[in-house]
């Protein structure tokens, strides 16, 4: 069962990896060619030296991802704290709003957000892109962090309050250190989202050199009309997936526990 599961999940990815390392001729003719003309690094060289080079898109995506993660956490932590401490109708209404926005398909926002970018001059600005991204990540982040706050024994905070620590200090010295694992898994999920987001990046960024990875790969440029550069596509795919692969493998525990805990506690 396990190997079947791995085959299902990894075979399409493995094919991309293979495609990225072979010559176009080898792709079409298949096995039976001399090894020298079969394997190649040319596809990687091509996307790495392209204009704009792929590392530029990786860098752009990393910048947006970092800014989004920071902004989301900065807004989500106080909101989650407030929501956890709050009772009654307000708590119910805010939770419902968060749930509704969490399942909302973001593509429906593209048209109005395009106008927003235009009227506020936010177009072609990677940091500005993190504003809508943070909003789109907030519902999930707040719900996850609120569940984490709920797990902390209230006596802890009461004790800190009795010692005369104000809210900011209580958060900084007592609560957040205890929340570190939840903060980490929330941050990773936010980063994953922002790395993968497509419709808003597609409409907010129109300069080729500022594009993030998903639209850049979807529009990947080649100069020959003669053949479809599948090798280069695959190389770009591999390079664009590599950072995420590392993140998922390194932080697999936090991601899985973050999502499952969040869902249980939600």
């Amino acid at each position, binding site marked *: 069962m396990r190997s079947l599961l791995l085959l299902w999940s990894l075979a399409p990815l493995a094919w991309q990896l293979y495609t990225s390392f072979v010559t176009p001729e080898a792709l079409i003719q298949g096995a039976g060619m001399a090894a020298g003309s079969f394997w190649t690094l040319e596809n990687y060289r091509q996307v790495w030296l392209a204009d704009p080079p792929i590392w530029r898109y990786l860098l752009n995506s990393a910048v947006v991802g970092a800014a989004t993660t920071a902004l989301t956490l900065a807004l989500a932590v106080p909101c989650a704290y407030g929501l956890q401490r709050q009772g009654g109708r307000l708590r119910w209404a805010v939770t419902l709003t968060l749930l509704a926005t969490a399942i909302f398909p973001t593509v429906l926002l593209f048209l109005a957000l*395009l106008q927003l970018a*235009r009227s506020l001059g936010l177009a072609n600005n990677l940091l500005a892109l993190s504003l809508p991204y943070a909003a789109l990540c907030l519902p999930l982040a707040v719900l996850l962090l609120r569940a984490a706050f709920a797990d902390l024994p209230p006596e802890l905070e009461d004790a800190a309050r009795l010692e005369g620590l104000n809210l900011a200090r209580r958060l900084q010295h007592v609560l957040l250190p205890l929340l570190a694992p939840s903060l980490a898994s929330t941050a990773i999920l936010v980063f994953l989202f922002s790395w993968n987001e497509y419709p808003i990046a597609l409409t907010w960024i129109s300069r080729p050199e500022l594009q993030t990875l998903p639209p850049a790969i979807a529009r990947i440029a080649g100069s020959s*009309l*003669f*053949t479809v550069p599948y090798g280069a596509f695959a190389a770009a795919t591999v390079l664009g997936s590599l950072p995420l692969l590392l993140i998922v493998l390194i932080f697999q525990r936090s991601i899985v526990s973050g999502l499952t805990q969040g869902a249980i506690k939600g």
Partner: protein
Amino acid sequence: MPGSGARRRPAPGAALAGLMLGLVLILLPAGLLARPVAAATTVRVLMPSPFVDSTAPLVASFNREHQDLRIEVARGPLDTEAMSDLAIGGLLLGDTAYDMLLMDVSWTAKYVAAGWLVPLEGLLGDDALEAMVPGARTGNAFGGHLWRMPLTGDTGLLYWRTDLMAEPPRTTTELEAVSRRLQAEGKVRWGYVWQGRQYEGLSCVMLEMIHAFGGQWWQTGSGRAGGQTELDSPGAIAAADWLVHLVRSGVSPAAVADFAENESLQLFAAGDAAFLRIWPYAWREIERGGGPVVGKVGVSTVVSAPGFRSGGTLGTWGLSLLAGSPHPEAAAEVIRWFTGPETQKALVLDQGYAPTWASLYEDPELKRKHPLLAVQRQALEQGPEVRPLTPLYAQLSDLLQRQINGLITAEGSAADAMAMAQSQSAVLLESAAGQDSA
């Protein structure tokens, strides 16, 4: 000029400053900063990827020769539709990063209506297009203004195999008969390949076929939309019928339903088809590809039904000046150079692009090196077919593509598909008329 201020007052301090300034000026372009600091005007152009590569040496030599005017080229995507989305995205965002745009002929009316283009006649003169071949002039000037200077004079052409026949077919009937004979003899797997995917290329194929059967897509008239469609005319139905007949009878592979230019070219260049409908640039691509058909390819104008004559679809690329450009005069100078005879001649020689200037079609060197020119001139003078010149063209084209692609991928009759395309076009134009009166 920078640096001249230091020369006027040769005080030691100023000389030192001048020296350092000079050093900085040398170092900066050498790699510290991508942009030169000289007070040159920089004109930025957004182009599809293939044009960026084909014009790169020419742009580099322009920048070497001009001290006060520089061209900076931004690379767009390869694919025409992705290019259109990127350009429109920038314009909708009000992002004035570019002074001009290399545009497909079918975008012009839409861009003009959106208010994105600046008329060029004031900058380039009323007679800017005068010396061009008549066909290449079309689609650039309308509503009393010049909106675009064409860089290429592309039309749809018929590529045929000189090793399989002595003469290219002139009519649809001949093409079909030759294809069947060659297929029956086992000389080729397929007869005729063309672009049948649901995308703009299919509209180009349809347009020239509609004319080849005596119909027309668009009747110019009044109103904001500028006319009416005639897609349910006998000629238009016959055109759709012929295309679907080619697929169903096996003259064209069923896979044309997913073919764009590169797929159809790939199949023809591999020697698997007797005929190919494509643009002028493909000839050089085939020659360069080094495949089995090199030296065995002839080019002719597209076929028509007996008794009719169709020019190929006009598919030119040209430069337009974007509203909001801070230096229109400098941009106009770049447009003049870019679309001028010298640049075009170099592009014909290097890339096999079709020129627009009549003089280039007489040029002995070009005639010798590029045998395609005679046919290309004939196609342009014969009157290439222009896609409907209306701001609503993108919608009209989209709904025609859906019908024709649906016809060749599924069941159904050409008459029904064209009736549907006509009624949908009528609804669209009617709703536009409603907006007009509002």
